[in-house]
């Protein structure tokens, strides 16, 4: 009979990028069960609706998470716009789509780097983050900020991208594509990398549905689910295929995200071609009254925004369900029966964003 022991893991741990605490019930080197406890990053920002008015809340929602900051702001703004029956100019929708896809690019590159770090491939980590800096430079040129740039407002966006800027971004991305394919080939074909990822952390199609996984986690288990297909912002005009994989393991999650990197570049290219001329925002008068439920696809998966307004400038309720929260049950499933040394890698394959989860 093997000896059972409980190993506390986190919140501050040499291999953990983010503060999450897990109690790992171990039998020798095998994890039997993982019991999470969260709350290290809880700020309680949803309660700020009582103190900040609905316009100021745009800046608060952008700070739910610094990685998908733009999409959080966009989700909240879209929900309020729907309540107030504001028709956003088409150009603003396209600009939002372009910034969203740039966010997805930088988030997936960040994840690839952290994954490389988790299996101890330092050079690959540096390489992925070097490529990511080019996206951040593009953010800085177009908005002035690198990670949090507050360009959303209720009724549109605050900054426009002129035609030559958009063209130069496309040519930067074209050049990047070659470098990207060199780096991502290492992830998909290098034998040392494959030995760490292949067949590790399997979550079957049925389990993924039962545990309510979202985003790349779900798509890597062979289920075609992508909120972009619901056609918010300018996605209704854009032609793209949902990337899935049937392998259900860590390598499949890596493959799906790498596929999405190239897909995002394609979407930006299409959006730049189709972007119409015109205004970037419309004036908004009065206070919102009513409720709305907005769903959108973040790099980590589907996010919900629920906003209820009462006709005053302070909202009744703002609620966000973030993708990492939905992916934690699936992550706990992958940890069952895993080797202790694989735990940091498995936590990372869901692309955890703890500050989103706990808000």
């Amino acid at each position, binding site marked *: 009979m093997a000896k059972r022991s409980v190993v506390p893991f986190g*919140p*501050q*741990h*040499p*291999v953990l*990028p*983010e*503060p999450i605490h897990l109690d790992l019930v171990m039998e020798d080197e095998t994890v039997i069960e993982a019991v999470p406890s969260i*709350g*290290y*990053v*809880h*700020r*309680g*920002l949803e*309660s*700020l609706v009582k*103190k*900040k008015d609905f316009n100021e809340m745009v*800046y*608060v929602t952008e*700070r*739910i*998470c*610094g*990685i998908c*900051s733009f999409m959080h702001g966009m989700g909240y703004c879209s929900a309020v716009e729907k309540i107030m029956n504001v028709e956003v100019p088409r150009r603003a929708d396209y600009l939002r789509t372009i910034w969203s896809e740039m966010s997805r690019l930088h988030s997936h590159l*960040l994840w690839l*780097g952290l994954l490389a770090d988790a299996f101890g491939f330092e050079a690959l*980590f*540096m390489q992925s*983050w*070097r490529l*990511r*800096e080019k996206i*951040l430079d593009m953010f800085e040129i177009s908005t002035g*900020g*690198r*990670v*949090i740039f507050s360009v959303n407002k209720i009724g549109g966006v605050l900054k426009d991208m002129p035609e030559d800027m958009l063209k130069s971004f496309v040519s930067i991305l074209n050049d990047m594509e070659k470098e990207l394919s060199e780096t991502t080939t290492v992830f998909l074909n290098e034998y040392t990398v494959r030995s760490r990822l292949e067949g590790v952390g399997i979550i079957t199609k049925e389990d993924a549905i039962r545990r309510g996984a979202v985003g790349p986690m779900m798509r890597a288990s062979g289920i075609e689910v992508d909120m972009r297909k619901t056609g918010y912002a300018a996605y209704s005009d854009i032609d793209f295929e949902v990337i899935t994989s049937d392998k259900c393991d860590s390598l499949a999650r890596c493959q799906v995200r790498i596929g999405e990197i190239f897909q995002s570049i394609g979407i930006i290219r299409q959006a730049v071609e189709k972007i119409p001329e015109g205004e970037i925002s419309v004036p908004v008068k009065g206070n919102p009254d009513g409720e709305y439920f907005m769903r959108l696809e973040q790099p980590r998966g589907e996010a919900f925004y629920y906003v209820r307004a009462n006709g005053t400038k302070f909202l009744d309720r703002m609620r966000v369900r973030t993708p990492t929260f939905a992916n934690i049950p699936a992550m706990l499933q992958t940890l069952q029966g895993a080797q202790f040394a694989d735990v940091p890698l498995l936590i990372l394959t869901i692309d955890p*964003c*703890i*500050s*989103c989860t706990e808000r």
Partner: protein
Amino acid sequence: MKTMHKSPWLLHYDGSSCNGCDIEVLACTTPVYDVERFGVVNTGNPMHADIFLVTGGINSQNEDVVKQIYSQMPDPKVVLAVGTCACTGGIFKECYNIKGGVDTVIPVDIYVPGCAARPESIIDGVVKAVALFQKKHEEEEKKKNGRYR
């Protein structure tokens, strides 16, 4: 021990930040900004660390964690608060779960403002922390020498 002050080790802990400052701190260790050229190395073990870099404010859950990491670090040590949240509580100051900046629980030596703090200002903060660490180290040596002579 005389050369130790030239390469202090750095420990990064994410308090309750939004990840914005965290990824900028991580970006500082990558090729474009490369803070390691100033002699610091990012470590995960508090017992190895000389500079404690905290991002985000303090809440009721991570308060003890921050205090514990601080007490585990060997003397002399320098604390660096990165980002507006770590300095004062920032935009989340009015949230029910936020106690305020890092200085509400441990003494802070250097404040790096910004939301999110830019890599250039983080590097500036780290360079100042290295200089301060050197100063603290020399003072400690002086004290020791005085005692034993």
